[in-house]
């Protein structure tokens, strides 16, 4: 029978929730890395026991952790336990935590400035890793989306990281600006049918696509409209909160923008709004059913000034028509006095026949629906604020 492993990153550590395919009884393990912010954890699709975690702190900076046994034990991949702590030349290891923008003449781009909150130009400074995306085919290859926005890649299991500088340096960087949470590259989508194509999203810059495995990039934001920037239809500057795709149709993308739920049917060349009858089209998460590419999920949040569900009712909205027509899913979710938020990386789906949908809240609840959203129940209620949720479906 299949098993489910839910990887939960929180403000104060990581938790791993495990169940069989019924998804009724859960084994809760954690906190791992207690006291640290775990922005994201991700498993390798080609080796589910290989997990990566972004462990970060305003005090101590960025740490990358890796597990090779499904989360039972962890190590910093630059310094595997039991191995010498120096290279044969006597140089110290510990490079796995090192994220340095590539400014080399050969492969890099000059370190420039970006727009700051007050409109002035501000230097690019590495702060943390927001999102890790493991290669679909190689467990040792993993991408990291970071703040200040850039994309890094490791091809040695997280031991060392190199920036794919063509994104940061493609030309519009001076117009990028931080969202309220920082200027972060928070979403990485890999096209399963074309290993050279990938998509990223940055707050607040927009969505970008590479067709040459990350070497060069172009903005793909036509059709987005954002009233909070001087030119609402600008090429960049849009606060994209999250994008999602179904692996069987990689040219169809769904987006939760700051305001507006959007859809593209041509790999991001153009977008159109599909907010339809949502009670509010502000929100953070968006995801796609594992087996129905036209079934998508969002969790509307009242506004950018009030980060909680409208009317204090926690409702997941599902569209079975790829947008525009939405139904509220409420069974098992609090329908009064609920004022939590659901952050952009905190929704995921499993791949069981009856698709499971999961999300975590800033109130520390992780909810599961084992039937595609019809019924919900909390797996846990009292974790620290949830930053991210990922799900692994294990054979």
């Amino acid at each position, binding site marked *: 029978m299949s098993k489910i492993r839910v990887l939960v990153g929180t403000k104060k550590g990581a938790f791993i929730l495990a169940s069989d395919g019924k998804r009724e009884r859960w084994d809760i393990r954690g906190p791992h890395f207690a006291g640290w912010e775990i922005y994201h954890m991700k498993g390798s699709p080609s080796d589910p026991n290989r997990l990566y975690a972004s462990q970060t*702190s305003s005090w101590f900076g960025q*740490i990358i952790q890796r597990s090779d046994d499904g989360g039972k034990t962890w190590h910093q991949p630059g310094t595997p336990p039991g191995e010498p702590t*120096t290279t044969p030349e006597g140089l110290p290891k510990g490079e796995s935590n090192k994220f340095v923008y590539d400014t080399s003449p050969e492969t890099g781009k000059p370190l420039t400035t970006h727009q700051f909150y007050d409109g002035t130009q501000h230097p690019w400074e590495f702060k943390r890793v927001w999102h890790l995306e493991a290669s679909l085919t190689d467990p040792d290859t993993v991408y990291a989306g970071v703040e200040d926005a850039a994309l890094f890649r490791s091809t040695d299991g997280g031991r060392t990281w190199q920036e794919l500088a063509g994104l940061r340096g493609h030309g519009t960087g001076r117009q990028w600006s931080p969202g309220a949470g920082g200027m972060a590259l928070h979403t990485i989508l890999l096209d399963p049918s074309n290993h050279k194509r990938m998509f990223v999203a940055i707050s607040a810059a927009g969505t970008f696509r590479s067709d040459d495995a990350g070497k060069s990039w172009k903005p793909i934001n036509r059709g987005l409209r954002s009233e909070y920037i001087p030119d609402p239809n600008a090429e960049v500057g849009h606060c994209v909160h999250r994008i999602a795709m179904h692996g069987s149709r990689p040219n169809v993308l769904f987006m939760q923008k700051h305001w507006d739920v959007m859809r593209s049917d041509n790999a991001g060349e153009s977008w159109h709004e599909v907010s339809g009858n949502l009670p509010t089209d502000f929100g953070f998460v968006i995801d796609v059913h594992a087996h129905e590419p036209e079934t998508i999920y969002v969790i509307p949040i009242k506004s950018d000034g009030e980060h909680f569900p409208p009317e204090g009712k926690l409702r997941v909205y599902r569209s079975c028509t790829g947008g525009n027509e939405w139904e509220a899913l409420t069974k098992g979710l609090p329908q009064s006095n609920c004022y939590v938020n659901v952050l952009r990386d905190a929704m995921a789906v499993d791949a069981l026949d009856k698709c499971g949908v999961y999300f975590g809240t800033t109130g520390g609840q992780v909810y599961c629906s084992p039937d595609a959203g019809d019924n919900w129940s909390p797996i846990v209620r009292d974790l620290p604020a949830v930053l991210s949720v990922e799900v692994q479906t294990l054979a």
Partner: protein
Amino acid sequence: MIRVVLPQHLRTLARVDGDVELEVAGPVTQRAILDALEARYPMLRGTIRDHLTGQRRPFLRFFACEQDLSLDPPDAPLPDAVASGSEPFFIIGAIAGG
């Protein structure tokens, strides 16, 4: 032998309990202590000072002998009591929040 007191989170990362003892060759300075610390515990590289610039991370402070040495030059000699090991070198996480 130099004694270094780490904040709890860095002890966890380095997998040590209690104080750390280090041999430091040459003059005992902040830089010499941190170099020795990172050589022995490479998993701490980047957690106390920036990988690239070598600057102390902003929320960390260095104390010894009841003095705040955080703003002293990294190559300035530390007090004799630190060099002799009779007083520890403290790496402190700033108290932030409320």
